Structure formats: structure tokens, C-alpha cells
């Protein structure tokens, strides 16, 4: 065991990430053995559809959790983005490109709202999340008059092209975009000033502040990054699943947070791994596909992710206690 840990490749990637990756592979093999016909491109594409939007949510919330905060308004905000921009397109005739930009912009604005309240007003993040979750739901419902919105299908001659962002002639464009986004996030977190400060302030805010760093600014930035990524997630959600319904979206909060904490990002802040988040998201997505394939109701997923998060976070808490 120790030998594996000392392997230079393993050390670089992180032992936990390697384990997590093995879990992913094992899960896939297990599902293939349990469910006839699970093996194959169709299932993988279906898993990927889930990965795209959940991946962006998870990447976003990774930044927030790295500061030691939390954002569980991401699911409803994603729906809000999809609803408002979709409504503008379907009922007000806006071109799809405007809608896409609008979606990202709405996510960005929610990020600004959350970040401002958390960092400049020092309101506990969970309270802000709770409020903005409901505000997002409310605004979407008011704007769309409580209608579901269906985005144009790929056959739509004018607006259908946006689905090429998800897949083009069966080629998973979405996966490429997601991996590029993940790579950018990784660079931002590890090799730039915002990333450095976000991680450090998550670990010890006062020490960073007393070093003459504007911690409020950087903390807020984490929420803004998160919001923007949530806006992008909305595009992939409608690209894969077409219809958004007002009043929902909170079921994805937990899955996004689960993907993030499974990957080794600590709820206490200061430690984050984008690579881990990517693998975590893959596991969660595979899990939900597997649960459906095994013939269980989709709602089992809620219970399973709930338990996963509890177990993973408890492991993190215990690891911290042992260190002290």
C-alpha cells in the first residue's frame, strides 16, 4: 500500500483521487454485470448528459466550498436561468444566442448577490443560500407565469443549433467543453492569484486579511465564479433535457455538493481538488443512471446522495480531528 502511495504519479495526482477513479471503474463494471445491456454507447451518452450540467454546478460550488462557505441555491438558480432565458426566447422571440448569454448573465447576477451578502455583510452562507434559492424560484415563476419552458429541438432551423454545444453528430462536444472548463478552473485555482487567495482564506481568513489582502473581494469572487458556472450549467441542462419547470431544481444541489466533497474538497474550506470534483461528478452521474437502469425510482437517488454526502463529510471531519 505504502509503495503505491510513494509512486510519483500517484503522489502527483493524489492517492484519494486514484482510489476514487478505481471506484468509478468498479461501479461501471458492476452496473454492466448487473444490468444486461448497460455496456455500450447509449448508456454512456445518457450518463454524459447528466455529467455536463452537474459538472458545471459542481465546479462552481467547489470554489465556494473552498472558501469555507456553501451555496445550495445553485440548482434552483440554474432552473431560474433556464426558465427566464428560455421564456424570453420562446415567448418574446429573442434569438437563441441572446438567451444563452442571458442565462449566463442571470447566473452571474445571482453570484454577485450571494457573494456580496456573504462577504460584505457577513451573513452566514446557508441563510443567503436559503433566501436566494427561494428568490430564484419566485422570480422564475413570476416571470414565466408558472409555465414550463421547452427549449427548441435540434430540428428547429433557427434556434436548434445550440444543441450542437452538447453533441454534434453524436460527437460529445459537451464533454470537450466541460473538460476544458474543468482545466481552466484547475489553473485558476492553483496557478492564479484569485485561486491562491480563495484557498488560503478558506483555511484562515484572518491571517490572509492581516497580510493586507482584500479577503472580501476574493471571497465574493468565488461566489461570482460559481454563479457564472451555474448559468452555463443551465445551457447544458436544457440542451440535454429540453424542458424546465418552475419551482424545482433543488434536487441537484445535493448531487453537485456530493460530487464536490467526494472529490476531496473539504467542507471546512481551504482544500479543493478540481480533478476530484470531475471524478466525483462522473460517479454521481453514473450512479443515477445505474439506479434507473436497475429499475428503482429516480427518488432513490436523493436518498443515496444524501447518505454519500453524510459519510464523506464525516470522514473529512474525522480526518481533521485526528490531525488536531
Amino acid at each position, binding site marked *: 500500500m505504502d509503495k503505491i502511495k510513494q509512486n510519483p504519479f500517484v503522489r502527483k495526482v493524489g492517492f484519494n483521487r486514484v482510489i476514487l477513479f478505481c471506484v468509478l471503474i468498479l461501479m461501471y463494471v458492476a452496473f454492466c454485470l448487473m444490468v444486461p445491456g448497460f455496456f455500450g454507447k447509449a448508456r454512456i451518452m445518457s450518463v454524459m448528459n447528466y455529467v455536463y450540467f452537474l459538472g458545471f454546478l459542481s465546479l462552481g460550488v467547489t470554489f465556494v466550498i473552498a472558501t469555507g462557505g456553501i451555496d*445550495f441555491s445553485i440548482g434552483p438558480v440554474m432552473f431560474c436561468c433556464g426558465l427566464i432565458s428560455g421564456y424570453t426566447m420562446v415567448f418574446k422571440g429573442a434569438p437563441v444566442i441572446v438567451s444563452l448569454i442571458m442565462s449566463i448573465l442571470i447566473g452571474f447576477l445571482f453570484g454577485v448577490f450571494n457573494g456580496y451578502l456573504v462577504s460584505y455583510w457577513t*451573513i452566514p452562507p446557508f441563510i443567503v443560500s436559503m433566501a*436566494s434559492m427561494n428568490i430564484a424560484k*419566485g422570480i422564475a415563476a413570476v416571470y414565466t407565469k408558472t409555465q414550463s419552458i421547452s427549449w427548441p429541438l435540434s430540428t428547429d432551423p433557427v434556434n436548434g443549433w445550440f444543441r450542437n454545444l452538447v453533441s454534434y453528430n453524436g460527437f460529445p462536444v459537451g464533454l470537450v467543453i466541460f473538460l476544458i472548463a474543468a482545466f481552466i478552473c484547475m489553473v485558476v485555482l492553483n496557478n492564479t492569484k484569485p485561486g491562491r487567495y480563495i484557498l488560503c482564506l478558506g483555511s484562515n481568513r484572518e491571517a490572509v486579511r492581516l497580510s493586507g489582502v482584500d479577503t472580501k473581494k476574493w471571497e465574493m469572487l468565488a461566489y461570482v465564479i460559481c454563479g457564472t458556472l451555474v448559468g452555463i450549467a443551465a445551457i447544458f441542462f436544457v440542451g440535454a433535457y429540453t424542458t424546465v419547470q418552475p419551482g424545482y431544481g433543488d434536487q441537484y444541489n*445535493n448531487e453537485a455538493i456530493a460530487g464536490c466533497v467526494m472529490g476531496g474538497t473539504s467542507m471546512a474550506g481551504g482544500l479543493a481538488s478540481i480533478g476530484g470534483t470531475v471524478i466525483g461528478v462522473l460517479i454521481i452521474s453514473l450512479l443515477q443512471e445505474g439506479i434507473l437502469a436497475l429499475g428503482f*425510482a429516480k427518488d432513490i437517488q*436523493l436518498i443515496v446522495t444524501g*447518505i454519500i454526502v*453524510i459519510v464523506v*463529510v464525516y470522514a473529512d471531519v474525522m480526518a481533521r480531528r485526528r490531525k488536531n
Partner: protein
Amino acid sequence: MTKKKSLLSDQRFIVLLVIIALVVIYMIFSPEFRKYSSILSMLDFSYYDILMAIGVTFPLITAGVDLSIGTGLVCYALVAGRLVRDYNCPVALAMLICVLFGVVVGAVNGTLIGVMGLPPFLATLCTCMITRGISSMVMATPWPTNKQPGGWFHSIFKLTFGTGRNALKIPIGFLVCVILVLVMEFVLNHTKFGRYTIGIGSNKEALTLSGVNVKFYHVMAYVICGLFAGLAAIAYAAVVPTVQPGTGAGLELDAIGGVFVGGVSATGGYGSVIGTLAGVFVIVLLKTGLPYVGLQANWQQIITGIVLIGAVMIDVAKRRRMAKEQ
């Protein structure tokens, strides 16, 4: 050293003024609101909020939170309702099951937070999802109506004399809630449980060093919260014709918002159940009253969210001023 506190510095008093102002505004703008039946229906829909809020006051005073009460109460009401419908379970037993279910979930939350040391919002977010998952697997269930056998439980909240349009309805549930509020206010201020709840929120370390079994009382705060979520489930079943599976997310916001409006500090350590009652009423008035002044019901979520943030902002501003004075 003790400063004489003016009435105006008591947040509860200000909240009371807000309630009066809201009622007056509604009455002026809406003849509909002035009717007894409107008041009655508003009260009907306030009970589960009040009950949830009484319960969640305790975790909030410990500087924690319970996000699972909303989906929780729907889950309890569904499971118990199914038992009544399909398994001939007596309503009294079903009510007991609601409460017990609440207590069990509360104990789980408490253990995760108080013993295992998970962040409160995260642990309860998980139980929120879990209870929601459970409730999604139960069929939609109506509890017995007033006239059906077992419908007696409605009279806990509303006494009905006579039938049809002329029936005299008395909102006795309000009295029940007020009594519970007073009992819990007493519990908060004059029992060990209440005192240690405040202590956990104020300075947990010191409480531990005083030799108090902090873990036990920390768990108890969530158990009490769960118990009241169970009671709220009964009140919910009494007013909602058919409890829908998988719903309930967002109900907790009304309760938690009410608690903060009522003056519980966002960092814990201070709070009052009477304040909670007043705070919830602000939320309930905003929620049920908006249609009377011509706003879509959908606005209520937005407004509750803003009120919640506003209440906490006031608390933050107050604490900043105090810190500056020192």
C-alpha cells in the same frame, strides 16, 4: 451597568408594529381581507408554519439550522396518511406516528451534528433530501376530511359547529399554538434544556468545561425541532386536501425566516419563542395576504427571501454597532 431597555429596542415590539401595519394596509386595500373567512383561512395556513418555527427556534439558537423540517413534515404526513387510508390505522395512532417519525429524524440530525460534528446545514440538507426521497415513494394521500371517520383531528385546529354555510368555525388552533409558544418560551428560559441550548449557541466551549453533557443537549435541540415538525405535519394534513409526494421543499424557509424576523441572532445564543411567533406572523401575512392586494402568489417566495435577508442584515448591523461601541 444595566441599561434600561426601551420598548422600541425590543425587536419583538417592532415586529408587532409591522404586523399591525400589514393588517391595516390589507384591510384598507382589500374588502375581501376584512371577512372573517379570510382571517380564518389565513390562520388555518399559519399553524404548520408556527409549529415548525417553534421547533426550529432551538437549533437556530444553538447557531445551527434544520433544513429538513419542510420536506420532513410532508414525509411524515404522507406516511401516516397512507397508514390511515390503506391500513385502517386509527387517526390518533397516525398522529403519534407523525410525531415519532419527526423525533427520529430529529435525533438523526442531532447525532450527525452534535455527536459526529457535521456542519448543521449540510447534515440537514442531506436529511432533507432523504425525507424527500422517502416521501416521493409514497402515494399522494388525503387524510380523512371533517365528515369522514377519523376527521375529529380537525377540531384540534378548528372547531366547527353546524353545517354548510352557516357553520360556526372557531380557530382553536391558534389558541393551541399560543399555549405551545408559552410552554416553549418557559422551556427556553427556565429549564436546563433551554439554558444549555442558549449556552451552546453562545459559548459551547465554556459549557463543555462547566461539565455539562453538551452533546446530549445539542442532540435534544434537534429532537425538539423534529417533534414540532411532526406536530406541524398534523396541522399540514389538516389544511392541505391532499398531501403531494416529493413536495415540501421551501416550507422551512417560512419558518426559519420567521424565527430570524422574530429576533434570533444569526450567530446563535439569543432568541425567544414569543418573538418567533410574531416573526412567523409577518411571514404568514406576507404569504397569504399578497393576493389580496393584487400581487401574484408567486411573489411570496421572493418576498420571504428578501425579508429573511433583511432580518439578518438588521441583526448584523446591530452587532456591528455593538462591536464598535466596545
